């Protein structure tokens, strides 16, 4: 996502980048973030729900509540603090069947709710409801129609750096990463980008198999997203 912005603006990244930090992310992610931000001279905003963290919020208190507090609430706070009107978000249709229902330009109201029963028309992948009204912010999903394999092919073509967790170590690798406590590695011997591409071409398992918030309860993802989860 950041690389695309950089290319679209001829090498500049004219907007700040927000990291929704739950404090539970893998240490490799923090290390990667700090290096990448420094190299590209990015204005980074670290968004944390400090209140919830102080109260000791963690997955032990329930994954739904944890995701909602540390991700969605943290996002709400940063949006209102900076007065953001629009966010570029890297979700894709093939990640989850709920995300597959999204629009490229997806409005959220003041309460952050996703009115999935009444989404705006988008015509010919060309005409969007691109103007937010006062009480709304827009989620813009430029990668919506990319697939997991497109991402890896793009990483290869553009020679982009990636977090080391994606590569197999001791026959295990992470295919999708987030919070260390809620991600499981999958069996794999793919330790290069080419091998990862080869592995994804045969769909033995889904990309987010290791992401526990997707499956804890049926329709948890729908509930999370209707409240404003990315």
């Amino acid at each position, binding site marked *: 996502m950041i690389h695309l912005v950089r290319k679209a603006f001829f090498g500049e990244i004219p907007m700040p980048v927000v990291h929704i930090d739950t404090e539970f992310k893998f240490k490799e992610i923090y290390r990667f973030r700090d290096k990448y931000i420094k190299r590209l001279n990015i204005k980074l905003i670290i968004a944390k729900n400090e209140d919830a963290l102080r109260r000791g919020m963690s997955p032990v208190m329930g994954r739904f509540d944890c995701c909602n507090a540390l991700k969605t609430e943290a996002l709400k706070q940063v949006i209102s603090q900076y007065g953001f009107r629009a966010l570029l978000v890297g979700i894709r249709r093939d990640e989850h069947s709920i995300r597959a229902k999204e629009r490229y330009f997806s409005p959220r109201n003041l309460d952050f709710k996703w009115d999935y029963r009444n989404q705006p028309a988008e015509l*010919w992948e060309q005409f969007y409801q691109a103007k937010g009204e006062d009480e709304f912010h827009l989620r813009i999903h430029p990668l919506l129609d990319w697939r997991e394999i497109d991402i890896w092919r793009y990483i290869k073509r553009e020679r982009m750096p990636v977090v080391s967790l994606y590569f197999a170590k001791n026959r295990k690798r992470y295919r999708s990463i987030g919070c260390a406590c809620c991600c499981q590695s999958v069996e794999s011997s793919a330790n290069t980008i080419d091998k990862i591409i080869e592995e994804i071409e045969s769909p033995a398992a889904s990309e987010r198999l290791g992401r526990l918030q997707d499956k804890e309860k049926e329709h948890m993802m*729908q509930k999370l997203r209707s409240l404003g989860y990315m």
Partner: protein
Amino acid sequence: MNRQLKIVVVGEVDSGKSTLIGRLLFDTGLIAKDVKEGLKKTCEDLGKNFEFAYLLDSFREEREEDFTLDTTQALLKTENGDFLLVDVPGHREFLKNMLTGASYADAAILAVDVNSPLGEQAKRHLYVLKFLGINEVGIAVNKMDSVSYSKEDFYQKKEALMEFCKDIGMGLSFAMPVSAKEGDNLIKESSRMSWYEGPCLIEALNIFTVKSSIFGFRFPIQDIYDIKDKKVAIGTVISGRADRKDLVKVSSIGRELKIKKVLAFNEVKSRAETGESIGIVFDNNDGLKRGDVVYKNIPPRITNEFQARIFCLSELKKQERLSFKCVTQEVYARICEITESINTGTFEIRGNIETLEEADAADVAIATEAPVAIEKFQDLSYMGRFVLQRNGHTCAIGIVC
């Protein structure tokens, strides 16, 4: 990224659109094991047999009430290449979602239930396809298992469909009997319908072709960036190509400009070609702005009044002030005449009226408050299609006649 052929599956409520797509994905081995198992459990919890439609219908209410609320997409891989299948809702209330899904597509499959007559939504969907310029349409006569795979029932249905399509001037690529639920004639020929000699569905998808139109250079300006103190016009080339040093014109200005530089990220290019998102530096950038269309040689039509056909997503009144959007152009406009309207469910035609209803299509004259650069839809679809918006919400889509 690869550009796959996009196929929308349309049809009446309960004709089996989502089941058809789900079954195709399932049978071609595209569903991961953990997704299958998760879904099996969901279906058991709801007290149902395995529902292929749930691979697409992911919202809780879609599953509990067995309908599709919003459009979604899934990739189908076959030996002959990949296809992107687009699922759309059949209910009239979700017409906006159906249009969104259908507007992505290059081709379409109409799913019909062999047991039911062609209903209002199916007719409307066919009309929408024709309206959107999707001429590659095939028909899957579904639920053949429920009529014991009867040859007579299929042919009866097929004839009725062909007659309707002929009436609205739509050609058909194929019509075949299938059972999405049982998987007949989807990825291989069914032994239960040996009387049918045509191809199975995934073979038939190869019949679809997409024509690409060749046209002069068209570059609608999206924005003007200041890069290292230089004005750069940003946009996507929608047709043709232009080289460095070429002389071009701009729709709103009329004077000739020379292309000095073509820029991409970390790259200076010698030309700008169809499909590229690039920056162009001209010898004189004065007055250039978003919405200007840069062209070479044959000009687009530059006018403030034109004939169009529109499809309404909400009620519309003659003379109401609306925003007209075509490529990156945005100007105020009014419908100054409604020549004829058609109810796309009943096909009732009305002339000389003041107000259009939701889901009406109409031939209209549109007057814009400033000149716009357009083309006929059939000549260059990008510049021949537009939307009319009220407060940022699309209330009609249209094509230039």
